[in-house]
């Protein structure tokens, strides 16, 4: 073994020891809090603060310890991160607040259809391992635009790639900042805006002082916290419900329970698909493909923009397919195309996201980069194969203990959640005895929409309900309320599944499932605080990685490589650091209005990456003949087609091909991009000898960073 390999293994063992102690410390602290809560009655507020402050202090400490002024350490963590640790860091980088909190919620709501996300966000790593990671590591520079610029010879391609990287990363980081603010607000009880500032300062300490090096080692710690926080509650729930401590194996029982209860409660029914003869759409948790298309998200987004910024945009007319009033619109439910398109876009997009790709610059060698993708996916897999268990147990419990029950007999945790506004029980029976003018928000909306009328007939200032009667024209009356929404089922005091709504204003979709698990299982508050710490770790770690990408795109690609190639090392680092602060401030400002549109844009980022970065990097490595004009034409064409389909389907679901929604629009852009790259490349001059040699060099697995740098210096285009 050579000296450097030996020092690598010493380094790896030392890090393994540190993080081992850290894991034991975190578990010990959680147990201590648990004991203090149970035996000493420690107030919940204090527990929240302890978890929050200790974890934030820890991240800051790692940041300060790994502060650096070296360029290699600042941008690529000194290229000495061992495969396993890079795997954990990639895991934390990848799994955002959305994965941690909303993944299980999406599965809860969509059933099988939600699995497109599970397979999409893991299957992409296979592409990354086979097609990208080893070659990018061999290339071994600082950013993805570096690669695009060198391979396609020129600053135009580089700047286009840098701008794409900035746009994608900025929307993504904004979504993380929203997540940070919400978690702080919910669990620590601080104001949303203060939560954002507190959380961001934690992010900044790390990424500002130590760049990629600090970010990497913090992400390792954050991964450990988030995975423990994710696994503990669902394991407890599994033991309680099935007596078996491995939820990933035991939730089969929950799936059976769900199917039985759905049948009993009449929730699963079959209808024939109007599009495909002989195809049946079965609604329910297990049966596939029963999601329709709708533009509700677009309508909400426009309304929200109007209220936030005092604009006067006209929202598109609400439309959904299937639409009983317009059967001619067709109905693609029951067919797999939307599912497949979404899954493909998520996979291809994963392999094209800059903040994940740069993680493979940080490992010591090509060899390690291959192993590192394996570890990355393994660590991500631990969370993703658990999410369906969360969803299934929670759905099972809700169908069994909540739905179909008298409102007065609901389990006590539902009342806590309802009073916090986390869930909304929409049976109109809850209005009985409520003072007029003090109705809950969702009732006021119904009144404004004129689907509910309240008249205080006896003049006591309160709403009094009576027995339900049909008053014709599709309306019903129950005492002092009447209207189209007053149906027999909605005033019977028995909670139906569709009467269980969520407070949508909080922006994180379906976050009920993970957050409510400790309550459903009757676990102590400490576990809830641990989940909050885990969610925070997930959001902060992703934000960290993204800030580095934005800063390096500006300081390295745009400033150093394009505007001023003579900039000194010191200038580049100072500029990088200041760009991190600027990006963080912009993200905070964008996060303040909490726009639903941001979450939507994150989902679109995958389609856009799938139709731009993915084909360009892929053909750049595997097809020597691909050249600069081809790459530029491909990126622009792919993006244009994707955006065209996206925009049209988003506002008007009747615009669709095979029922594919705007989330899967990259599937149309990708082939266009590939064809354009091939055709335009063949029509124009083949790449220079130097570039072809570069491709050959990429395919040779012996890591040689010095040789590569010399080669690139020689190639540097005349400026």
């Amino acid at each position, binding site marked *: 073994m050579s000296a450097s390999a030996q020092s690598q293994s010493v380094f790896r063992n030392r890090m393994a020891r540190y993080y081992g102690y850290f894991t034991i410390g975190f578990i010990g602290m959680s147990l201590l809090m648990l004991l203090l809560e149970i035996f000493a009655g420690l107030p919940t507020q204090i527990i929240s603060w302890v978890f929050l402050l200790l974890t934030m202090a820890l991240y800051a400490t790692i940041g300060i310890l790994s502060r650096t002024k070296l360029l290699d350490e600042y941008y690529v963590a000194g290229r000495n991160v061992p495969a396993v640790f890079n795997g954990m860091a990639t895991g934390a980088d990848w799994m955002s607040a959305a994965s941690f909190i909303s993944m299980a919620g999406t599965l809860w709501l969509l059933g099988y259809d939600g699995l497109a996300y599970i397979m999409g966000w*893991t299957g992409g790593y296979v592409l990354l391992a086979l097609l990208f990671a080893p070659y990018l590591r061999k290339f071994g520079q600082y950013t993805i635009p570096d690669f695009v610029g060198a391979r396609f010879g020129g600053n135009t391609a580089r700047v286009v790639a840098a701008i794409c990287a900035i746009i994608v990363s900025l929307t993504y980081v904004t979504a993380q900042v929203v997540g940070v603010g919400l978690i702080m607000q919910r669990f620590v009880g601080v104001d949303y805006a203060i939560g954002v500032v507190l959380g961001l300062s934690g992010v900044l300490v790390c990424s500002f002082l130590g760049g990629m090096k600090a970010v990497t080692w913090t992400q390792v710690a954050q991964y450990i916290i988030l995975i423990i926080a994710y696994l503990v509650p669902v394991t407890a729930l599994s033991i309680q419900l099935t007596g078996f401590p491995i939820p990933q194996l035991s939730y089969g029982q929950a799936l059976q329970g769900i199917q039985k209860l759905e049948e009993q409660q009449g929730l699963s029914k079959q209808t024939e698909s109007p599009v495909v003869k002989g195809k049946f759409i079965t609604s329910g948790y297990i049966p596939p493909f029963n999601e329709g298309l709708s533009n509700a998200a677009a309508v909400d987004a426009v309304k929200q923009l109007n209220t936030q910024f005092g604009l006067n945009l006209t929202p598109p007319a609400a439309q959904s397919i299937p639409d009983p009033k317009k059967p001619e619109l067709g109905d693609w439910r029951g067919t797999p195309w939307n*599912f497949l398109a979404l899954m493909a876009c998520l996979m291809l997009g994963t392999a094209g996201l800059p903040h994940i790709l740069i993680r493979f610059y940080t490992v010591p060698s090509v060899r390690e980069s291959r192993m590192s993708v394996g570890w990355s996916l393994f660590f991500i897999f631990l969370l993703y194969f658990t999410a369906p268990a969360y969803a299934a147990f929670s759905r099972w419990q809700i169908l069994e203990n909540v739905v179909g029950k008298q409102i007065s007999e609901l389990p006590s945790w539902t009342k806590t959640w309802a009073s916090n506004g986390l869930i909304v029980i929409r049976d109109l029976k809850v209005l009985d005895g409520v003072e007029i003018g003090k109705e809950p928000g969702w009732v006021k909306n119904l009144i404004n929409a004129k689907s509910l009328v309240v008249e205080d007939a006896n003049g006591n200032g309160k709403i009094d309900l009576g027995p339900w009667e049909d008053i014709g024209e599709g309306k019903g009356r129950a005492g002092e309320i009447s209207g189209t929404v007053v149906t027999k089922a909605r005033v019977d005091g028995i909670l139906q599944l569709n009467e269980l709504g969520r407070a949508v204003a909080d922006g994180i979709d379906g976050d009920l499932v993970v957050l409510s698990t400790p309550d459903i299982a009757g676990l102590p508050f400490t576990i809830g605080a641990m989940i909050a710490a885990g969610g925070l770790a997930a959001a902060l770690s992703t934000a960290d990685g993204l800030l580095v990408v934005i800063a390096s795109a500006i300081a390295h690609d745009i400033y150093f490589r394009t505007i001023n190639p003579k900039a000194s090392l010191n200038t580049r680092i100072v500029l990088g650091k200041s760009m991190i602060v600027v990006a963080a401030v912009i993200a905070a400002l964008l996060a303040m209005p909490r726009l639903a549109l941001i979450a939507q844009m994150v989902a679109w980022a995958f389609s856009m990456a799938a139709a731009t970065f993915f084909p360009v990097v892929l053909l750049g490595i595997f097809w020597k003949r691909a050249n600069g004009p081809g790459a530029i034409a491909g990126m622009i064409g792919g993006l244009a087609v994707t955006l065209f389909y996206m925009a049209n389907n988003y506002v008007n679901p009747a615009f669709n091909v095979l029922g594919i929604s705007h989330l899967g629009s990259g599937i149309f852009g990708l082939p266009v991009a590939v064809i354009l790259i091939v055709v335009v490349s063949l029509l124009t001059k083949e790449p220079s000898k130097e570039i072809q040699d570069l491709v050959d060099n990429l395919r040779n697995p012996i890591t040689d960073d010095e040789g590569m740098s010399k080669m690139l210096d020689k190639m540097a285009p005349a400026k």
Partner: protein
Amino acid sequence: MSDLTKLPVAERNRRYWQENLRLITILLVIWFAVSYVPVLFVEALNNIVIAGFPLGYYMGSQGSLIVFVVEIFYYAYAMNKLDAKYGLSDRDR
């Protein structure tokens, strides 16, 4: 078998790349077969229930994921062997 490490450089690199491409293709076929194909047949697969899991649902929520992880580690292992076979090993740096 002749010693592949002694081949002329261009020929050695070409053969190494061909073997790599073949391995990638095989793994991508498996990748496609465990993720996209079961989606097309999910309803039929759901009729098979193992330990409470309908098979179609299981493939989407766990089965394909396990294959993904194994495939990546296998590729790393197989490529290390391939590197060594052609004298392109990255080990002793």
